[in-house]
């Protein structure tokens, strides 16, 4: 039996090029090469030539370097865990929701805490009045934790907790709640995010400065490696970077660099690599760049294996990158929201082809509010359908051996290596973060992306192409944060009245001393404090008094957005209008862009600020986490024409009216207030009634907003 080649002479690549040229009416096939944000060239056709010299082309799943998967049989053996991130309002409400999800096919719990809790404030703290129970569940003490997990057997159900800032009281609260449920901590399984480095970069729920924050992580890893063998001590997250604007290469590189920093932290705390590395887990964001996302996940496993290898592990599990994934919320739109189901499905497929261990799929109302019950159901069902109705799970790493996929995997890996080298040269991620460079890189990528979308170079159906005027009615989950706050405050009062204050004060002092001396384990002490019914805020304060509270390092890119608009006519028209404004007013239009409450979503605020400055506004930035009173003071002192509130975490109905009141108190009622961000349409009228002049929702093209804002100011200053 002769080989195939002997019988048929196959045409060559040159033959293909010729044919392509003819079919492209004379244009070269090179015109079809596309470049994405990562700077990686994607060709229209891949052949064997493209994988020449790639060492891992014949690797196998479950075996080093794990490109093809963490396990030998992957989903053919057992599919990924469906794990939907959720949490809102009170512990009671969230508990009811979790029980319902578990009954409906969910396979683990993933807790979303409210922003007050994230930042270490109790519900009765004056700085969080608009945030309690809004964007997650409010937890003040272990009593809330017990309600949160009521009738959920913690030895059987794995729990993932997205907590980074107030990680000590929350992890301790979970341990004590289990204890009082009769479950020993050794039987607890799940994950605590505990990834503080990316908080400084993109997620913004830090409390203490980087140094002490890393010490806390060291203490947690140390404690858990001895006491909680089934619990993942850290979820090293790239997801938030992608959502903040990072392309796949940046996400990959910075996340792995974070991971390396955590390894060093644990080693410094006295552990051996095999004591903790098997319990490190990862978290990727999965957007619409289908092939690249799969390549990213494959490359990540290979690179991590290499990184861990440097530290000479003996346990093979140490070098295996296990990951959770979440589809991209950023890719979802307020406009034509049912399209989001399709987007999420495609992204979920990429996560699955990439070999994820667990997955969250976003709800179709992502850009409107927290998921409604209906939207959450569809999101979960998307995964159930993938698992049970398609045959996708039957084959391990089906993209393995694809010329394209192997080549992209190789390319994104080497891009990431370059970026990681830069971080290493700066002395590792903790040091690099101090320079602000990684954050700035991501913000630059976000500004570029925004410009590409606003210019229509990147299509988003329903937003900048194929738009529709039809408005689909969608249910909106609405949370009465005032009511949640009140009930939380009452519970805190009750608990404080009943507890052994003296004993608790002693432990809180111990915590402060442990923070100061650097010896002892902060988690161990926090567990004691939580048993004695300390609040999250009290434990946080005990450490803040020693560590201090970290202040955001706000740097801004300039020129990136404007560069993309050079020679654009509409853009030039706004510039000219601004020149006219200056002639009439004696100065540029001046806007204060502010973030109020504990809302840490700063992508939109930053992008708007840089673009408005590029077109000719003077733009003031408020510090993150300002109160309405503080913003009013800033607006007055800087004498701005307009305050632009960027609100994404749902506190607009509490904080915007307060801001307007505060402006009046300062004799500044003429200062115009506009709002941007995630504002459900049904709230618009209420905000207008309070005096808000204009609202810009998700998907607003910035030049359009700039033009309108200019008109509003000009109108009021009547010329």
């Amino acid at each position, binding site marked *: 039996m002769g080989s195939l080649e002997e019988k048929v002479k196959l045409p060559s690549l040159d033959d293909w090029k010729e044919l392509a040229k003819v079919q492209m009416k004379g244009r070269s096939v090179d015109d079809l090469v596309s470049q994405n944000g990562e700077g990686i060239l994607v060709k229209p056709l891949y052949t064997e030539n493209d994988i020449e010299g790639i060492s891992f082309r014949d690797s196998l799943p479950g075996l080093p370097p794990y490109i093809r998967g963490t396990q030998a049989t992957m989903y053919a053996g057992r599919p990924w865990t469906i794990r939907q991130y959720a949490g809102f309002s009170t512990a009671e409400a969230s508990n009811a929701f979790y029980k319902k999800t578990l009954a409906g096919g969910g396979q683990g719990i993933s807790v979303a805490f409210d922003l007050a809790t994230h930042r270490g404030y109790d519900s009765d703290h004056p700085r969080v009045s608009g945030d309690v129970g809004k964007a997650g569940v409010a937890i003040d003490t272990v009593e809330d934790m017990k309600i949160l997990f009521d009738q959920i057997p913690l030895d059987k159900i794995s729990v993932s907790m997205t907590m980074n800032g107030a990680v000590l009281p929350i992890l301790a609260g979970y341990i004590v709640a289990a204890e009082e449920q009769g479950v020993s901590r050794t039987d607890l399984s799940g994950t605590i995010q505990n990834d503080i480095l990316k908080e400084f970069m993109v997620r913004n729920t830090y409390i203490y400065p980087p140094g002490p924050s890393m010490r806390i992580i060291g203490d947690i890893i140390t404690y858990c490696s001895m006491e909680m063998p089934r619990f993942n001590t850290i979820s090293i997250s790239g997801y938030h970077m992608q959502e903040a604007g990072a392309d796949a290469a940046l996400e990959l590189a910075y996340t792995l660099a974070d991971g390396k920093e955590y390894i060093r932290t644990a080693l410094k705390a006295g552990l051996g690599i095999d004591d903790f590395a098997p319990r490190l887990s990862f978290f990727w964001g999965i957007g619409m760049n289908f092939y690249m996302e799969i390549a990213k996940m494959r490359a990540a496993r290979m690179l991590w294996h290499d990184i861990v290898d440097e530290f000479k592990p003996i346990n093979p599990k140490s070098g295996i990158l296990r990951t959770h994934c979440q589809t991209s919320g950023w890719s979802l739109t307020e406009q034509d929201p049912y399209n989001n189901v399709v987007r999420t499905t495609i992204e979920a497929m990429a996560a699955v082809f990439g070999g994820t261990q667990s997955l969250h799929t976003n709800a179709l109302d992502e850009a409107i509010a927290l998921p409604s019950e209906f939207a959450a159901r569809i999101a979960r069902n998307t995964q159930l359908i993938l698992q049970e109705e398609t045959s996708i799970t039957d084959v391990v790493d089906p993209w393995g051996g694809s010329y394209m996929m192997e080549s992209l995997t190789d390319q994104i890996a080497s891009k990431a290596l370059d970026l990681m080298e830069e971080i290493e040269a700066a002395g590792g991620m903790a040091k690099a973060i101090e320079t602000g460079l990684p954050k700035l890189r991501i913000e630059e990528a976000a500004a570029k992306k925004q410009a590409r979308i606003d210019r229509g170079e990147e299509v988003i159906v329903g937003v900048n192409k194929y738009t529709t005027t039809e408005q689909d009615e969608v249910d909106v989950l609405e949370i009465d944060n005032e009511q949640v706050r009140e009930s939380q405050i009452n519970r805190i009062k009750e608990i404080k009245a009943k507890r052994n204050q003296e004993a608790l004060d002693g432990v809180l002092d111990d915590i402060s001393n442990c923070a100061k001396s650097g010896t002892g384990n902060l988690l161990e002490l926090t567990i004691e404090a939580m048993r004695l019914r300390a609040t999250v805020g009290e434990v946080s304060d005990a450490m803040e008094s020693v560590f201090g509270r970290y202040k955001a390092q706000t740097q*801004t890119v300039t*020129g990136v957005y404007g560069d993309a608009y050079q020679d654009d006519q509409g853009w030039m028209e706004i*510039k000219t209008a601004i020149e006219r404004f200056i002639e009439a007013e*004696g100065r*540029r239009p001046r806007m204060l862009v502010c973030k109020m409450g504990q809302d840490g979503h700063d992508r939109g605020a930053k992008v708007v600020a840089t673009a408005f400055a590029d077109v000719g506004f003077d733009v003031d*930035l408020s510090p993150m986490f300002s109160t309405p009173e503080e913003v009013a*003071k800033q607006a007055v002192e*800087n004498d701005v024409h307009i305050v632009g509130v960027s609100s994404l975490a749902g506190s607009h109905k509490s904080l915007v009216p307060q801001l307007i009141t505060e402006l009046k108190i300062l*004799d500044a009622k003429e200062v115009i207030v506009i709002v941007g961000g995630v504002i459900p349409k049904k709230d618009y009228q209420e905000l207008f009634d309070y005096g808000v002049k204009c609202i810009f929702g998700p998907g607003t093209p910035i030049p359009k907003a700039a033009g309108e804002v200019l008109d509003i100011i000009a109108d009021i200053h009547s010329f």
Partner: protein
Amino acid sequence: MKSERLTAIRSGNKRTLAKAITLLESSLDEHKEESRELVDEALAYSGKSLRIGITGVPGVGKSTFIEALGLHLLSDGFKVAVLAVDPSSPLTGGSILGDKTRMELLSREKSAFIRPSPTSGSLGGVAQKTRETILLCEAAGYNIVLIETVGVGQSEYHVSGMVDFFLVMMLPGGGDELQGLKKGILELADGMIINKCDGDTIQSANISKQQYISALGLLSQPEYWSTPVLTCSSFDKNDVVKVWNMISEYFDLVKNNGELENRRNKQNVDWMNALIKEVLIGRLNSSSEVRSLLVKLEGSVKNMEITPYAAASEVIHALDLS
């Protein structure tokens, strides 16, 4: 006659003060007129603050230092005004003014007033109105005025000519190249600090300190004060207090020996000269006849039809008549 505006400023109304500063910064002629009147009125109530200029390359830590110093001064019972002159973005854009993000705690305080100003616009822009702004802040009762200015370009010369104490901030290391600052800036300094002296940089900060001390030694300095060089971490309260003690020592000295008054009187002469220039240039631009004459003569000078000297006198003559 005292205007209502001044009364409001003096009573501590921040809105009025802020709007008055906008008026000072305005490029419109009618606003300039109005603001000159206001400043003239305010003069009687000004002069009672310590005026401190703080300069250094972007990122050296000026804002962070001011946040720490300002909070310390508030706790000592001072009322603090901060004027920040930010670099504007390149080309034709506006500025991003993020100063308050670095002065988060200070900006919340009732007894602090922080005003960032864009430098964009013609001829160094609004930074030129900093002197007048200082006066208004004084009239409003602020007894410390801190002026943050970027030490690249011209602004530091302007600012040093309107303050009582000029503090230059440097980074550890790189003492020899003076970190992009012009050498002349050393001559302006009344005090220098090597900032970010913490963590890994303590050693190089001390080396830099010695380098600056010897560089300053080569300059002629007044008898009563030789510019001190201190190391500092703006994150360390004690360091900031140490710097403040150095500054207040200076003030004790110059208040007693009359040098403070001397310096301010000299600055007033400069100010007068600056005002004359400003008014004259304003008049050049405001008379359309003179302006068109100017354009015509520029052409003639270029074509060598008239000497620059003759052209200039023709313009001055026209100005006299207009």
